């Protein structure tokens, strides 16, 4: 060792001595209490990771969940301690002004920690159901949460970028976490490619702003802008634009939203909820801080851009959600619409706007995590039953779950006596300051959004169709395609079933109804009438040999088995998916004439429709609904909490 280092040692010592003398590298004094929530969260994540790698087998889920819950709760605790500290002694900057502790940052910390806590509750049931052992999911989520917290308390563009990357890279992995689903991998890749591209744009924006103002520190940028009038501000404008693009990507504002529906749909459902809440909270926190506090003096330059972004985000988010059939995609577009509402607060660029935006994020976090918790449960094993049809008749089977989802959806729509309307009310109040048309556009988009929330709500309260609700109950004479067709069709159809099954990486056959025997026919008719029923959740049963199919919008995504006495004609177009409230049961006698169409009996099967709600998930949903409703009826505390979300630097 001495031998190899020896020749260089004097030189190194000289260098160190030189550096010390010149003071070129001064490690700043670190006030650890200023970053204690981040330390708790990240330190906890690292400890959990180390512990998980020391044990021989994958860590048990209960251990990982317990540890994560404890860490998140501790993080909430220290964040609240910070809150009283800030309220008592005022806001301050630390770590060489790279970190700021003010009402705003503390609130973001509380928000992210709470989101982490609830997500852990949801993820527990999910991990058990999907058989995902180990602590990786939790560790990655905590790292991601730390990134969001860093973004909330960063006072330097470089630190914001660090937070952004910590947040994003963990999320890329989380999106791919359910490696048994191809969609999950696709989502992750898409998110990663577009996300890294937007990060690059963001860094370039930092560089340009640095070039224009001579600093990356938010306070110094504000100071520079207050003391100098830029004669040619092209560099600053370009930098701001690139920063807006970077942030808009992360918060999923139109037109930088393209990734959102695919990623939300493909990611594991609890991760989607986490992503929608935490990534948006972190990115918006930094977005608000950078633009309101540091670039506030040049607001006239960026407000029109945000105005435009808000308009298209509100309208397209609501408009495109209306046509979605997949509930996760619908919620993705709805989250875009919500981002538009938060942009209203940003666009106002006032203290009221900032606190309104933060209140919105707070209310939204609980609504969205709760909604995705319900989606997780309804998704069943395989996390695939997200078609809107899976929700049909849910109220009959599981009234409490349906009620909880209705409350969360209505809150998102802005129903009174929920935090949802208080949130909308505050951002719109901030917006009417100087833009009444924008406020009107926002509320009209809320009305459009109400339409698709209600569509799900009403479907849950609509029982599955019965014979008397189906138009044309007379058996048609010329049914072109029989579900159980003639012998001539038999082979081809079966082959197609197999082919389709093989192309699927993971057959979704475990979503089949657990038992089929004690059932009662609720509908009898022919195939054409079955097609008129609309989407049916069904398994096909023939000769007691159950075959589960999942047809989503006409394509087969299921497994077929050899059938006796009948064949499947998959082009029949009967939408069938595996969520299994209803059974499509053939009579099994085989054959049947192709012209007339085989009779089909739809049977309701006892336990088939109900989904199991794990206790912890139920607790999570309960917390979300409780907070949404209780703080909606008793709004004082949270509103005044958000009112203290003041930024340290306000020009």
């Amino acid at each position, binding site marked *: 060792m001495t031998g190899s280092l020896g020749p260089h040692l004097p030189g190194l010592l000289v260098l160190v001595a030189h550096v010390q003398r010149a003071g070129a590298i001064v490690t700043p004094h670190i006030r650890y209490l200023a970053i204690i929530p981040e330390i708790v969260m990240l330190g906890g994540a690292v400890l959990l990771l180390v512990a998980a790698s020391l044990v021989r087998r994958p860590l048990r889920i209960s251990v990982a969940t317990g540890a994560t819950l404890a860490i998140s709760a501790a993080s909430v605790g220290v964040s609240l301690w910070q809150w009283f500290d800030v309220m008592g002694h005022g806001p301050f900057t630390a770590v060489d002004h790279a970190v700021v502790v003010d009402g705003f940052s503390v609130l973001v910390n509380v928000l992210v920690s709470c989101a982490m806590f609830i997500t852990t509750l949801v993820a527990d049931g999910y991990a058990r159901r999907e058989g995902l052992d180990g602590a990786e999911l939790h560790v990655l989520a905590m790292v991601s949460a730390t990134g969001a917290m860093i973004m909330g308390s960063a006072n330097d563009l470089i630190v914001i970028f660090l937070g952004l990357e910590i947040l994003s890279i963990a999320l890329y992995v989380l999106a791919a976490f359910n490696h048994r689903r191809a969609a999950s991998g696709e989502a992750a890749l898409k998110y990663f490619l577009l996300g890294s591209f937007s990060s690059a744009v963001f860094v370039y924006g930092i560089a340009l702003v640095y070039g224009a103002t001579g600093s990356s520190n938010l306070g110094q940028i504000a100071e520079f802008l207050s003391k100098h009038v830029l004669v040619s501000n092209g560099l600053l404008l370009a930098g701001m634009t690139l920063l807006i693009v970077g942030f808009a990507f992360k918060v999923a504002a139109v037109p930088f939203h393209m990734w959102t529906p695919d990623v939300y749909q493909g990611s594991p459902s609890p991760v989607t909820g986490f992503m929608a809440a935490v990534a948006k909270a972190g990115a918006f926190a930094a977005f608000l801080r950078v633009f309101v506090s540091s670039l506030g003096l040049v607001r006239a330059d960026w407000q029109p851009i945000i105005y435009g972004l808000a308009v298209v985000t509100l309208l397209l988010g609501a408009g495109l959600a209306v046509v979605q059939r997949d509930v996760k995609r619908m919620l993705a577009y709805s989250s875009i619409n919500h981002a538009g509402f938060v942009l209203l607060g940003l666009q106002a660029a006032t203290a009221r706007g900032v606190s309104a935006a933060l209140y919105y994020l707070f209310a939204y976090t609980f609504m969205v995590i709760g909604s995705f918790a319900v989606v997780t449960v309804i998704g069943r094993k395989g996390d695939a039953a997200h078609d809107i049809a899976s929700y049909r008749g849910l109220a009959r089977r599981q*009234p409490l779950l349906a009620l909880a989802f209705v409350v969360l959806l*209505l809150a998102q729509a802005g*129903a*009174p*006596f929920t935090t949802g*309307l*208080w949130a*909308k*009310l*505050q951002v*719109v*109040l901030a917006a*009417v*300051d100087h833009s*009444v048309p924008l*406020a*009107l556009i926002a*509320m*009209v988009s*809320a*009305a459009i959004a*109400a*339409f698709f929330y*209600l*569509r799900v709500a*009403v479907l849950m*309260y*609509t029982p599955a169709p019965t014979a008397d609700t189906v138009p044309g109950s007379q058996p048609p004479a010329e049914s072109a395609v029989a579900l159980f067709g003639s012998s001539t069709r038999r082979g081809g159809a079966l082959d197609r079933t197999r082919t389709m099954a093989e192309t699927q990486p993971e057959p979704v056959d475990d979503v089949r109804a657990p038992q089929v025997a004690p059932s009662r026919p609720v509908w009898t008719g022919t195939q054409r009438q079955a097609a008129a029923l609309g989407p049916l959740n069904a398994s096909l049963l023939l000769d007691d040999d159950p075959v589960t199919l999942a047809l989503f919008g006409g394509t087969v995504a299921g497994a077929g088995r050899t059938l006796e006495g009948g064949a499947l004609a998959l082009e029949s177009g009967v939408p069938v998916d595996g969520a299994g409230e209803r059974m499509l049961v053939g009579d099994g006698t085989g054959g049947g004439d192709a012209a007339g169409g085989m009779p089909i009996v739809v049977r309701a099967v006892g336990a088939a429709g109900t989904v199991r709600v794990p206790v912890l998930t139920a607790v999570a949903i309960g917390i979300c609904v409780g907070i949404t409703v209780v703080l909606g009826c008793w*709004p*004082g505390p949270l*509103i*005044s909490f958000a*009112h203290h979300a003041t930024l340290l630097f306000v020009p």
Partner: protein
Amino acid sequence: MTATHAFPYLTVLVLLPAGGSAAVAIVGSMPGIRRAVVEWLGICVSLATLGLAIAVAALFSTTTGGFQFEVFDNWAGSVGVHWQLGIDGISLFLVLLAGVLFPIVLAGARTRSDARSYVAWMLLLECACMGTFVSIDLILFFFFFELSLIPSYFIISGWGYARRAYAAIKFFVYTFLGSAFLLVGILVLAFIHEHQTGVLTFSLPALVHTHLSSVADIGLFLAFTAAFAVKAPLFPFHTWSPDAYGEAPTGGSMLLAAVLAKFGTYGILQFDLRLFPQASVDLAPLMLTLAVIGILYGAVVACAQRDLKRLVAYSSVAQMGFVALGIFAFSAQGLTGSVLLMLNHGLITAALFLLIGWIYERRQTWQVSELRGLQAPAPVLAAVFTVVMLASIGLPGLNGFVSEFLVLSGTFVTHRWWAVVATAGVVLAAMYLLWAYQQVFHGKVDLANSRTRDLSWAERVVIAPLIILIVFLGVYPKPVLDRITPSVTSLVAQVDAATHTHQPPVALHGTKGVDARTHRGGSR
């Protein structure tokens, strides 16, 4: 000015049904609870609410036109929203109307399926109705106004008839869209007020003093009126209402037409006129014209209906036109008539929908062509229907006449030609209602109709309060008018003061023809 009471009557009035709703939901989900228990629980809660409403009416002072029983609590003070309740002569009878109708709906218009949810939603709807009528904080009012949508949406979509899903969505989206304008309007008004005084508040008595530019005045009036006109519904924002009234279950139709429709006209009276008097006066010709078109359109379309329920739905559109006519006539007579007509129309329409619902229970149809000669097998039903129908036409001696007369005469003195045209609506109402009555109850009874059951004793008990009120208010409306008049007078004074119109005592020489453009107002 305002009487204060130690007991928070209005808060309890609002929260009692909400608590009852939660109780019904919880009790109903217990195993082994029979549906009768749930239904009786609902009826008891709504009767208790009615008792409270009657207590408020009994303690109500007739000497003041201001808000009484005021409650003021900090609710979300940091955004200026307060739990501020109050009641005046305009809202008192709407509260009573809701109080009377909910027990009748719960007892008379029961459902076959899932009584627990139905009763729970109904009680939540009652909470929303009470809250809407007694809130004098604009945001609180908006909250209750919006809250009413949720239970009524679920009642229509859950227990309605064939096209219920379509009707429910249409109803929700229409009214929600209207409310979007209302919310923005409220916030803009509060913002302007904050700009002038430095205080962010949504309290109606405070916001009355906001100075508005004429553009802001007109714009805000239109924003508020958009929501109210949809809810009322006034022509041309009525298109949701025949669908919603037609497809809703009997109880839903009764409440939608009798109580929820009043939110719109109540909002116009209490908020538009107080907050934007100048714009209200300036735009009165427009509103009067829409009201008259609504009266004639509703009546003509009702004439063409072959479906009893839709006939009543369109007649309701016409009646609400009369309410709007009386409001924008800006005479004390017209305004008093409007308030009274809101009450009377509520009673009559609820009774009509209830009777039609009972006919449907017996015959499974609303088609006039399939009903014939019901008088023979069901004489009591026919008799009750006759009274209600005649009240709706406006026969002297029944309640409909008093209010319609006040509205038309009040409008005649200030806006003569609108009153003249609107009178045609009364004639048309007689036409379509008498035609329908004749078809359904008269004529030779056929086999299908001859088995129709007459009203049971329970049904007679349920409908009796409505019949009694219809007759009583037709014969002796004084107790009601005594309580309405002070509030209406102060409202008219407020509008006059704000618009600087000198008011001759119009009622005295009204027949000489007062030019509507220069003299607005009413008699004192």
